[in-house]
């Protein structure tokens, strides 16, 4: 008689609900329309978010700690689900126009989210890797699903570079295992402080390889080259998903590994600060030269990676809180901006920045919403982007990286210029015929945009409604689990 293994399923609940959505999309796709599936997935996402609430403060774990539903995981999962919700709302309107309206699209999307959640819940490097691969493989497919040359090219590029990144990452995991003899975050963190000199070298090597692998996934310069092509070439709703949910998940992984497991390990801090500096400079300056709005947002996503990664240089307490706050704000504002692009673009290439002239007089609500998103992305108060930026500056500054804070401040000037140009153009009077898709303004997309805009405004005026949850330092000292 086969004995089923003893597994506590409670901590798995949010992941399982999302997985159920993915499976139902796979199976039911033969009988019901894609829109129905999207509604099912929306329900699954909401249920999963609710299940996060039931796990709050319970600190449960499964598989002997390999999978842990601690508060850090729940907060990051909440951000992931918020991004998913917005993506699903946008695909309701635009998937048909982007020619990706088939059940497989929804299935892949939900599998990717499952992977993302696994990363946030991971308690050891293997679960992390499994999550990362589920997420990445689904994303490769998502980027390619649209039958166009541009999508195929971007998907292939994404796949090849992503696979190389994964390979480096796995190699790094092997090194870390070699140095510490364990894959569990808690054990690695314990061993990292009491290593023999020979092992330290291996650990440093492993940490750096992991850093490279993650740098591919989150698009830190110089490993960012694929981002503009993939974000620009994929259907806009997919770009939205890739630049928010997938990035949040990759950062959740980095937080677990670097602020958690390898926090005491030497070496990676100094390399990371160089990567961040390069990202800030390259991302911001390259975005300055983009004439296509969607591509510009892709580079801006690269630039934001630099800001987000600054949080990893802070202490886990300050950095974790800053990262969790910034990730939610980043998701809200980027998703809302891309949702507007998805609604108004004539083709999947997005639209040119000059096409935005006079948008305010044609689509006043979308124009104002986009202006709010851009102001928030640029870090202008009273929108939440400002507090996000402030928190990461503070985290880095407090931990002795003053020069990086100053550099980040200086490169933000370039950021303001490229966010400002489209924002100002929108309000300039214009008599030429409209160049955007006139019928794109639909209820679900508007809902997603409203969610983003209300979110960044509310979080900007009263940051405490989200920061109050993430500010507790105790959450972030337990990143490695018990």
């Amino acid at each position, binding site marked *: 008689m086969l004995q089923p293994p003893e597994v506590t399923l409670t901590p798995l609940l949010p992941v399982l609900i999302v997985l159920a959505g993915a499976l139902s999309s796979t199976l039911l796709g033969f009988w019901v329309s894609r829109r129905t599936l999207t509604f099912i997935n929306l329900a699954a996402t909401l249920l999963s978010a609710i299940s996060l609430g039931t796990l709050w403060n319970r600190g449960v774990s499964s598989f002997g700690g390999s999978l842990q539903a601690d508060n850090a995981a729940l907060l990051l999962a909440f951000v992931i689900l918020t991004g998913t919700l917005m993506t699903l709302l946008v695909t309701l309107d635009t998937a048909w126009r982007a020619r990706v309206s088939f059940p497989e699209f929804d299935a892949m999307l939900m599998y990717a989210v499952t992977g993302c959640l696994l990363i946030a819940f991971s308690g050891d490097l293997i679960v992390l890797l499994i999550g990362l691969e589920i997420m990445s493989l689904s994303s490769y497919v998502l980027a390619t699903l649209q039958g166009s040359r541009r999508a195929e090219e971007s998907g292939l590029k994404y796949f090849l570079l992503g696979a190389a990144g994964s390979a480096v990452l796995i190699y790094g995991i092997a090194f870390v295992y070699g140095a510490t003899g364990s894959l569990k975050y808690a054990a690695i963190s314990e061993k990292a402080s009491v290593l023999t000199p020979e092992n330290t070298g291996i650990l440093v090597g492993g940490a750096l390889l992991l850093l490279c692998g993650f740098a591919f996934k989150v698009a830190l310069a110089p490993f960012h080259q694929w981002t503009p092509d993939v974000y620009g070439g994929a259907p806009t709703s997919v770009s939205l998903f890739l630049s928010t949910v997938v990035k949040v998940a990759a950062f959740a992984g980095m937080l677990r590994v670097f602020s958690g497991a390898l926090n005491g390990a030497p070496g990676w801090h100094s390399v990371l600060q160089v990567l961040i500096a390069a990202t800030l400079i390259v991302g911001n300056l390259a975005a300055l030269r983009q004439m296509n709005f969607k591509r510009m947002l892709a580079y801006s996503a690269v630039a934001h990676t630099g800001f987000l990664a600054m949080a990893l240089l802070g202490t886990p307490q300050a950095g974790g809180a800053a990262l969790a706050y910034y990730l939610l704000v980043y998701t809200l504002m980027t998703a809302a901006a891309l949702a507007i692009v998805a609604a108004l673009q004539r083709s999947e290439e997005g639209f040119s920045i000059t096409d935005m002239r006079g948008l305010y007089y044609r689509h006043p609500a979308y124009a104002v919403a986009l202006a709010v998103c851009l102001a928030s992305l640029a870090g202008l108060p009273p929108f939440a982007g400002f507090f996000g930026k402030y928190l990461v500056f503070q985290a880095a500054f407090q931990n002795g990286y003053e020069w990086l804070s*100053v550099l980040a401040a200086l490169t933000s000037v370039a950021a*303001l210029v490229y966010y400002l140009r489209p924002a100002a153009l929108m309000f300039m009077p214009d008599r030429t015929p409209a160049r955007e898709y006139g019928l794109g303004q639909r209820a679900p997309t508007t809902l997603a945009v409203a969610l983003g805009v209300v979110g960044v405004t509310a979080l900007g005026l009263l940051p405490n409604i989200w920061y109050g949850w993430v500010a507790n330092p105790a959450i972030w000292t337990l990143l490695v689990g018990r």
Partner: protein
Amino acid sequence: MTFTDWLPTLMIFLPLLGSLLLLVTPKTFRDEVAGFIAALTIGAGLAIWRGGGSELFRWDWIPPLGITYSVQLGGVSLALALVTAFMSFIAILYAARRIPNPGPMLSLILAMETGLIGIFAAQDLMLFYVFFEDALIPALLMLAIYGKSGRMAALTKFAAYTLFGSLLMLVSIIGVRYIGGSPTFAMTDLKQNLVQGSAQTWLYLGFLAAMAVKLPLWPMHAWLPDFHEQNHDSGIPDVMGTLYKVGGYGLFTFAIPLFPDASLELRPILMGLAAFTALYAAWIAFGQKDWKRLLAYAGLSHMGFVALGVFSLNETAVIGAMYLLAFQNLYTGALFLAVGMLQERIGSLDTRVGGVMTQAGALGGLTMALWFASIAVPGMAGFIGEFSILLGAYQVFPWLAFIAGVTTIAAAAYALTAFQTTFWQARPAGAVRVPDLVHTEWLILTLPLAVAVLFGVYSAPALNLMQPAVRAVLSALGGN
């Protein structure tokens, strides 16, 4: 919690409320609603003045980050807030008549008023930063919606300069709190946990970067002429732009108390820079052929004076600087509006039109009177400010006071030359007939002038308001 505690908050947010209200107001009542809200804001300010300034009101805004909502309107900040409210009212009065379909403009004026009064009221560094940036957004929108063909470049330049400074200031703000070890960003806490040593100088430089751009101080001034030139002809955005010169105030309220040693250490360099800015701007103004650019450089020259006064850390000079800062808004703002009226009549901003005086005597006369205020003719508010600054600066560095003093002669030269070539000389043959002032235009030019004359002749109320505040700030220097 009494009503007087709420007055500053009311004064700050009333215009913003009005700005949002305008979005849902029917077109026919928009002017009246905007004017009423602006008048109400002045009323709130006067009520605070009657009560002798407000107490510090503090509420923990974001407790885990140590950011408080601390506001106080008293002394210098009250004077500046009142002038801001007054000039916003004047701007609304003019915008309602001059601009066709003025809805967005009225909204933006009110939104900006909130930002500006907030800047003056903030007693918490982060709150100050938030208002500092907030005032930027309506200014940018005014330029984007109502600007001229070259506005994109002007807008980018303006924003880039401003953000360059303010982001460095943000890093400094973070540094001031963490290196000093203060529990919050509120000024009361920060003053008790001052940063010591060389870190103070570095942080001061970061702070200075933002203020020098806003002031503006040479060589950070390049955005200013373009900003004014590309804005709407009416001069309304420029009025708000001149109110935007919060740099002098920021240096006075935050930089001196937080970086006393650094202020003393850098005093010679900064005073030199300020004196140079004043003279250099006056010199450039002399060569301008566009009224807006001329006024922009004249404003820059005045701000050089203000900076000289603040940097000198001398009581007389600082009071003079604050006096000039407050009342310069009146006459420079009114001059921008007068230029707008001139443009409306002759269709150009050129300073060499000729003969306007013969047909539009009232416009010419009032413009001249405002120019007298601007070049500090005794009996006008500007004189008291500039004279006190020179008197105080002389006690610190006589030579720099002398260089700055030369500016007053240069000012007379550029002002009178431009005035002469526009309003006197012969009217070119075949030129359009210039109508004189009508309706509210009279009010728009005479009200600011009247206030400038009133406080030029009877300065005691304003001085009494400012003096204790200046003494309190300078006491941080340890009886220097």
